[in-house]
C-alpha cells in the first residue's frame, strides 16, 4: 500500500518546506512540496496539507495576507471543508488566519489576527524554545490526538505571533467553539502567566488554534524543528530535556513528532 500523500505548499518566500516534508516522511507519510501556482488539482488529490513557515510574499500588507488570497487557498479551503487535516505552522498559521479557515466560526470571514509580539522592553523578532500543552478538548484534532499530556517543548521564531480576537471575546466564547488547540505553559505544565513562558503576549496564552471541526490547526511554534530528539537543546529543562541528556541517539523522535504521528494514525499510516 502506498503511503498517504500530504501536500506541503510552497509559496514565494516560504522557507520551511523541506524540513516540514522531512518531518512528515519520518512519521511514515509521503510528503510532496507543491508550488503555489501548480494548481488546485495536485493538492486536492492529497489526504492532508501543511502550510509551512517563512515569509510568503514578503509579508506584504500583513503576514499571510497575500497568500490567503491566492487561488490555491480555495483548494485548501475545500480540503478543510471536507474534513481533511490542514496544518499551518508560523507563517502558515498567519495564512490560515488571514484566509478565515481558523477560528472558522463564520466560514470565510477573518475573525482573528496574529499581531506583533508584545514583550516587555523589546520589539521585533524573537526566537527561542517554549513549552505548550494540548488544550482541553483539542485532542479531537487529527493533529493532536496522540500528543502527550504534559508540557511539550517546541522552538518558536517570529515577530508577529500574538493571537488576537475582537475586543470582548471571552475565553468561554473560544472554548465553547473548540478554538483553543495549544496553550503556552511552564515547563511543569502549569499556566504560562505571561512572558517568558508566553513568548509573545498571545491572548489566553494561545500557541495554536483550531476550527470548530478540529481538522484545521494554526500554530506559531515549529513542530518540524523538534521532530527528532537531537533537535532539543541539551540544557533544556523538563522531562524532554532530561531525555535529551540521557540519549544522544540521532534516530529517536522528538517532542514535535507527536503532531505528525497523530496525522499518520488518523490517515491509517501509523506503525
Amino acid at each position: 500500500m502506498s503511503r498517504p500523500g500530504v501536500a506541503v505548499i510552497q509559496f514565494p518566500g516560504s522557507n520551511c518546506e523541506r524540513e516540514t516534508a522531512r518531518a512528515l516522511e519520518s512519521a511514515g507519510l509521503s510528503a510532496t512540496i507543491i508550488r503555489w501556482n501548480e494548481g488546485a488539482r495536485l493538492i486536492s488529490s492529497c489526504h492532508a496539507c501543511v502550510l509551512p513557515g517563512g515569509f510568503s510574499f514578503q509579508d506584504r500588507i500583513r503576514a499571510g495576507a497575500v497568500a490567503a488570497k491566492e487561488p490555491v487557498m480555495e483548494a485548501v479551503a475545500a480540503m478543510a471543508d471536507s474534513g481533511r487535516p490542514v496544518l499551518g505552522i508560523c507563517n502558515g498559521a498567519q495564512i490560515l488566519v488571514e484566509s478565515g479557515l481558523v477560528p472558522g466560526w463564520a466560514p470565510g470571514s477573518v475573525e482573528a489576527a496574529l499581531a506583533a509580539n508584545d514583550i516587555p522592553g523589546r520589539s521585533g523578532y524573537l526566537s527561542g524554545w517554549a513549552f505548550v500543552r494540548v488544550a482541553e478538548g483539542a485532542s479531537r484534532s487529527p493533529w493532536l490526538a496522540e500528543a502527550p499530556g504534559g508540557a511539550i517543548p517546541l522552538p518558536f521564531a517570529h515577530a508577529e505571533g500574538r493571537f488576537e480576537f475582537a475586543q470582548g471575546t471571552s475565553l468561554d466564547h473560544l472554548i465553547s467553539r473548540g478554538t483553543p488547540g495549544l496553550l503556552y505553559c511552564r515547563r511543569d505544565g502549569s499556566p504560562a502567566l505571561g512572558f517568558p513562558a508566553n513568548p509573545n503576549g498571545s491572548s489566553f496564552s494561545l500557541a495554536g488554534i483550531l476550527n470548530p471541526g478540529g481538522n484545521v490547526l494554526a500554530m506559531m511554534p515549529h513542530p518540524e524543528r523538534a521532530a527528532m530528539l537531537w533537535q532539543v537543546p541539551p540544557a533544556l529543562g523538563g522531562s524532554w530535556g532530561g531525555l535529551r541528556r540521557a540519549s544522544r541517539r540521532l534516530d529517536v523522535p522528538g517532542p514535535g513528532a507527536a503532531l505528525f504521528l497523530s496525522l499518520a494514525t488518523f490517515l491509517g499510516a501509523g506503525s
Partner: protein
Amino acid sequence: MEGLRAALEKSIASRGLSLTPDEALKVASWVGRMPTPVELHLFDTMWSEHCSYKSSRRLLSVLPTNSPDVTLGPGEDAGAFRFAEHAGKCWDVVVAHESHNHPSQVLPVEGAATGVGGIVRDVYCMGATVTGVMDMLRFGDPLGPAGSRVRSIARGVVNGIWQYGNALGVPNQGGDTCFHPGYDDNCLVNVVAMGVVESSRLVHSRVPEAAHGEPYVLVLVGKPTDSTGFGGATFASADLDEGGLRAVQVADPFLKRVVSIANAAALDFLFESGASFGFKDLGAGGIACVSSEMAAAGGMGVELFLDEVPTAVEGLPPEVIACSETQERYGLAVPERLAARILAIYNEDYEMPKLHPGAGAALIGRFVDDPVYRVWCRGTEAACAPVEAITRGIHHERPWREAPITAPGMPSREFSPAQDISRMALSLSGCSRKPLFSYYDCEVQGIALFRPGEADASVSLPVPGCMAGLAVSGAGNPWIGELDPFLGGASAVAEAVRNVVAVGATPLAATDCLNYGSPEVPEVMWQFRRGLEGISEACKAFGFTGGPLPIVSGNVSFYNQTPAGRAIPPSPVVAVFGRISDASKAVDISLKEPGNLLVLFGPRRGELGGSLYAREFCGGSGGPPPGFRPAEEREMAGEILEWISAGRARACHDISEGGMALAALEMILADSDAGGCGIELSCSCDAIALCAENAGYLVEVRPGDLPPQMPGFASVIGTVTGDGSLSGPGWRLEVSLLRPAWADRLASVVWREE
C-alpha cells in the same frame, strides 16, 4: 600624450574614480584610445583593492591552501572541502568569508544585510544549498565617548543580519562579538556562509570548455538592475567617509529566496540535460565583472548587450548598467539551445516578473572565441578591450616598517575571586550573547544540533539523513592583535580550532578575513605581514588529516580607519570548519551531573597581556600576551578529540577570554533550564590560575572514566556539585544571583534606547 593624461585626470575627478592617472594611462594603452566610461568604471572596480588584492596578493601566498580534504581552494567565489559520504553520494562543504565593514558603518542595517546577501550568493553559485551564516562583529565602546553612535550601529547591524537571514531561511550559526574603542569609527562586520553540495554537482564560475564547440549565452537572473551600489568596491577600498552612502547596496531577502528556489530548479534541469554550464554571482563590479571574469576563466571573449538588461528605471547610463552592484543577481553561462527553458523556469514557473517588477531572467550576452570584451548599448560600442587585460590584475609593492609594542608589566593587585569573577562576567566581553542571538533564526532547516552559545562551536547536520556534524566557529582577539600582530593571527586560528575541537569535531578547513588599516602606511603593512605569518604558522600546526589546516577562502579588508588616519587594531578574523563523523558524540559546554570531575587541560601561565582581567583591573597592563605553542596545542587538541570520541567527556569548554574562571562559570550558566550543577575548584585560586587566557580546556568527566594515566598537561582541578555555585578554597560565588544581570547585560547596554 599630455592631452590624454589631462583628459583622464578630468574623467577620474568628475567620476569619483579611485584609479590613479598612471593606472588610467595603462587602460588607455590597452584599448589604444581614450577609454570609454564603461571601461574606466570597469577597470576602476577590477583594480580596486577590494577586487584586485593589489597590495596583498603576493603576501597571501604564505598561507597554506591545500590538504587532502580540499576540493576547491581560493580563487573562485568560495572554497570547498570533502565532508561526508552518505547513501552512495559524496558531499562537499562550500565556504566563503567576507567583510562588509564600510557599508555597515555608514548604513548599518543595509550594510549588514547585504553582507549576508552577498556571502550566501558566493556559496549558492557553487551549486550548494546554504546551510548556515555567521557574523564576526567588532564594535566600538558602547559606553565610551562615541557610545550613542556605536550602540545605534550595533543595533542596526543585528537588525540587518536577522532581517535578511531569517527571511532567507538560512540558520544563523552565531559568530562572535567584541567591543573595543579601536572600532569606534570603523566597525567590522565579517560574514561567513557555508553550504553543502554533492561533489559531482559543484559548479564553477566560468564558461565551460564546451562553449568552444557550441553557442553559449549569458543569462542574467534576479533583480532588475538599478543604480544602487554603483562604485561599491571602490568605496570599500578607500578611507571611510560618509560620502559613500550611494555605494551601499539595497537588500531583498524575499527575492533572494525565490531566486534561490528557482536556481535550484534551473540547476536540476541543467544537470539532467547533461550540458556543462557556468554559474557565478554578481558582486563587486556587477554585470561587467561577472561577464568578463566568466569569459576570461574559460579562455573566451564575450559580447554583452546592455539594452537587454532589465532595469528598474529608464535611462541609466551604460556604465551604471554595466557596473552597479544591484543585489540578488546571478549570471548563468548555458548552451543557447537550453536558454528558452531556463528563462521559463524563472519567468513562468516561479513568476518572478509578477513578484517584483522587472525581476526574472534575461539573455544579455553571448560568449565568443575571440578573447575580446565587447559591450553594446543603444547601437554603439560602449567598451572593447582584451578580456585578459581586464582580469590580468595589478600589483603594488607596499613598504613596511616594524612597529613592535612593549607590553607594560602587570601591577601587583589583590585578587578576590568571587568579586572579580562577577565583574568580569558582567563586562561587555563576559556577558551573555543571547540577547543578540535571540534575534536570529538558528533553527530553520531543522539541522541545528548545537545552537550558538550552547557549545564552543555551532554544530549542524547539513546533509539530510547523514550523521556527520559540521562544526563551525569564528575568532579573532583584537586585544592580542594590538599587542602582537603575529599572535593576533596565530591566536585567531588557535581559538577557532579549540572551539571546533571542544565539541569533538576534527578541523578540516579554515577561512580568513584580514581587517587592517591603510596598506599605504608602512607600520600597518608590517602588522598585516605579521598577521599572515601568524595564521600561516598556526595552520601548519593544526593539520589533522595529513597536511596543514588549509585556508580555502577569504578576503582582505584594508583602509579600516577614520579620515584622521587612526587605524583599527590589527584584526585578522578566522573561521574554522570541522567534522564530527558521528554527531551523536558531540558535546556541549553545559554541566551534566554532580559528582563528576573537572579536568584542566593546559597548565596556566603568567601571560595576562590583553586578558580580560588585565583590562578590567590593571588598566590594560598585563605583560606579554599568551604565547603560541604549536606542539602543545596540537597535542592537547588530539587528546580532547580522543576523549570525546571515547565518550569520556560529558562537557567540554575551551579557555579563552576571562580564563578558567569564566570558562567554569559559563559551564554552570549554560545549564540554564535544567539547573542545579555547580563547580567546586580544589586548585589554587590566584589571578593567574583563574584568569590567564593561554590555551586550554575544561572537561567534565565521570570519576570512573578518568584514564589510568593522565597526559602531562592535564590535571583534575575540581568537582561538579549540585549547589549551582562556583567556589574554591575560602570563596563562593552564587551564580543564581549573578545570572539575571549576566543574561541581560548586553540588552541593557546596547538596546537601552529601545
